[in-house]
């Protein structure tokens, strides 16, 4: 068990390294970073000066070594745009994004699982059809459009909540709602199909044949087994939430990492982009690690095969 986690941690380190390398390559093949900073009209002399300042005149291998070394000591350099170290700027945006994604997931998970489980218990019933429409909407509606519709309906028509900004609950409701809809749909869909699969399995019939209460059969036995695929996509959804956050934060003017990423990209702020990608990658890797740990609890077969070859 411990060996399994240790191995997963090692893998995570490797993945982080790969991500860093990709960031480095991307930053250099998308055009000359110096030109991006100083502009196309700058004199050749100025370009040279800045190139030296930024250590971009060194050979590529040297640059790469420096970059990895700096990244490992959490140095991403000074933001071209804000003229302050990039990483602290990124880190101070984390709480805003985390609040938003946590709220979205906290809404989507229980609601999605409940809707999915209920519709699996009564396939083709009214509740199943309602769930189907809701989840189909969730996976097909573009967040950008949903955000605008919500703004149109609530603040503009009804005068509820705020259109944009950061502060109390009135700023928070609409972005959280927008962000939770897609994972809600996916989780409801997956829960429904996973529960349908599990309920058709022999152990469910056998549990009933032992005289266990139906509540226990469905919500202890079937649900624990159905939780495995639900957990898998919840991990994916958490990663996707960060994607969604880029749009939602931009539309609602929410000061999180997503908005910062867009701003940094618009301003070709290479250190800032590198820092945001790094932080998001770490966030996703940690999420995956947590999901894997939860797996071993849900599915003893993973636990034992992992222990077996350790």
């Amino acid at each position, binding site marked *: 068990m411990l060996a399994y986690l240790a191995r997963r941690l090692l893998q995570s380190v490797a993945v982080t390294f790969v991500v860093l390398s990709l960031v480095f390559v991307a930053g250099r093949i998308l055009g000359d970073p110096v030109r991006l900073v100083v502009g196309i009209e700058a004199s050749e002399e100025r370009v040279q000066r800045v190139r030296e300042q930024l250590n971009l005149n060194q050979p590529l291998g040297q640059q790469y070594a420096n970059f990895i070394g700096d990244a490992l000591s959490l140095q991403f350099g000074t933001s071209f745009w804000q003229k302050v170290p990039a990483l602290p700027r990124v880190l101070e945006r984390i709480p805003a994004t985390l609040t938003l994604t946590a709220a979205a997931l906290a809404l989507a998970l229980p609601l999605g699982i409940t809707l999915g489980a209920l519709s699996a218990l009564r396939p083709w019933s009214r509740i199943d059809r309602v769930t189907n429409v809701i989840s189909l909407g969730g996976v097909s509606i573009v967040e950008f459009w949903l955000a605008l519709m919500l703004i149109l309906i609530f603040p503009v028509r009804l005068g509820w909540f705020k259109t944009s900004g950061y502060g109390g609950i009135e700023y928070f409701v609409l972005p959280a709602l927008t962000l939770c809809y897609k994972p809600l749909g996916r989780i409801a869909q997956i829960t429904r199909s996973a529960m349908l699969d599990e309920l058709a399995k022999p152990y469910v019939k056998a549990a*009933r*044949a032992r*005289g266990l209460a139906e509540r*226990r059969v469905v919500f202890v036995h079937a649900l624990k087994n159905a939780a495995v695929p639900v957990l898998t996509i919840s991990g994916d959804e958490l990663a996707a939430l960060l994607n969604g956050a880029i749009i939602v934060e931009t539309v609602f003017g929410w000061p999180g990492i997503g908005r910062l990423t867009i701003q940094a990209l618009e301003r070709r702020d290479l250190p800032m982009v590198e820092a945001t990608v790094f932080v998001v990658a770490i966030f996703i890797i940690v999420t995956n690690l947590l999901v894997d740990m939860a797996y071993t609890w849900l599915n*003893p077969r993973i636990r034992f095969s992992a222990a077996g*070859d350790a």
Partner: protein
Amino acid sequence: MAPSEALLAVRDLRVEFRTAAGLTRAVNGVNFTLDRGETLAILGESGSGKSVSAQAIMGIVDSPPGRIAGGSVRLQGEDLLQLDAEAMRQVRGHRIAMIFQDAQAALDPAFTVGQQISETLRSGGALSPQEATARAIDLLERVKIPEARRRVHDYPHQFSGGMAQRVMIALALALEPEVLIADEPTTALDVTVQAQVMQLLSELQAESGMGLILITHDLGVVAEVADRVAVMYAGKVVETGPIAALYARPGHPYTVGLMDSMPRVDRQEGRLLAIRGSPPNLMRIPAGCAFHPRCALAQDRCSQETPALLPLPDEPGRHSACHFVAEIPGRRRSEVSAEVAGLGASGEEPLLRVEGLVKHFPLRSRSLLRRSPGAVRAVDGVDFELYRGETLGLVGESGCGKSTVARTLLRLERATAGRAWFAGEDLFALRGEALRKMRQHIQMVFQDPYSSLNPRMTAGAIVSEPWEVHEGLAPREEWRARARDLLRRVGLDPDDERRYPHEFSGGQRQRIGIARALAFNPQLIICDEPVSALDVSIQAQIVNLLQDLQQEFGIAVIFIAHDLSVVRHISDRVAVMYMGRIVETGTRDQIYNQPTHPYTQALLSAVPVPDPESEARQRRIILEGEVPGALDPPSGCRFRTRCWKAEPRCAQEVPALIERFGHGHPSACHFAEARATVPVEG
């Protein structure tokens, strides 16, 4: 309870399933009774409604689409069908318990077996968690699970099939039910393990005095344990009665047919007497007697008037639902032993010679840094020869390596070591075009007729595909005529060429698979468990077909099976495998009448014989334990860990497969001696 009242009485039980395709009448008026301490076998093929009847008694038919359409189920006089859901829940597990075919699948993989037993115990009454765990350990000990105290914390996947079924039995016994329903409890198990589980069930029943309903398709198992039998066909009980009388003088044409369809380990026969046709589609059950389209005795009356289940005159306790019951005696085929098929003439070159065949599957280490942790030794030194036109039966329990031998010979797997010559050519050295040419001479018939046919191709296209792949086998303009001819030869309608696999039954699909193999004009067909997925009455048709085609075309056959009765029926010579090695080979008569290796003897004696009066039961050898893991096989003789003859020498010295008893009958045992385990008839 009145003395005349049965423990459980099922009257006119009817169950329907309403689906988009139509109304399926799975159970169509089932009647039987069960007394305290009695074992009633419900015998029937798949789709006969036996499992659905059991689920209806338990109140666990999936609804929708299922619905109990009528009848009564009285447990000590109380009609269970009238109970509300909560009252019925309290009957389940507490008064009637059930065990299932696939015990691994019937246990929740996410909880330990101890948790599942405790949960069941606690649903029965107030019990502290500690008390429940202690009781769970008691129960596991009662079903003879070694080291119960430790294993109570294990998960289902850590148990072997036989052990999982014991856990399932412990779960069923937890609340001390009055009735236990066992739905094909040993069908998924190897034959030696099956004997252990059946013995355990009998012992537990004798201890507790509960009534046992044993649902099975296996006439042998029935004969071993049942007091009475109810034979089901198309959702109805067609015959009931005490086991001995019913087996001696079957009182329904279907029962007669079943008995004759079944190959027996204690007899050898020329042809199996198959029941023609296949069981009816439950959406369109034939009018009158449902069996009449397949019955030799059928007359006009049978298609109009449904026969009632009536007492047989002069036969106490027996009932049969046949209009012409009086004409049945004497209809059973006379049991004459057939001529033994000729062996390859001596001096002839073998078609296939295999020497020292080894196939190891290395385990992949999950870590890049660590070395491979070992290898599964699936096949570990196998030698045999096969002559033209001969059938070699390769038998052994699951995991013994018999299918791996087949896959290696087909070059689907690369042999780790060893050599094989096919028609004089080095089989493992062939490359490219030569290999492709060779492949047309060695064909395979697979176990699963459902997944081995492309669902998007018509039967005609499937059968002619070989000609497309191997140019020169048949000119294109002849394909259609030849495909039709092949379909006819395997017993299908030539017009079936336009139909798709899903339109055929399992037996018919297996016929298509055979036709496809024949299309290559092969010299050797390897059949890997070709009938184990089929119903008994269909099995016989396919076995007969293989036998006929083999005689007609002179093809050599390697027939791989775990079912010793089928192998006895079809093989000229038999090789018995255990843990990747052949432990004994010989002619069919040598192996079945004079087995010399302890494993062969145990294997043969474990096969249930469909004859309640057989003396075989008294001489049964029941092996201890299950097959050890192939990752780390026992030293010396691999069978020694389960062998009653084992001595220190067996652990040190690998017994060679050499002639110890006359010509052509090598045995790999230091202490081999001939011993008839099965009474020889015919």
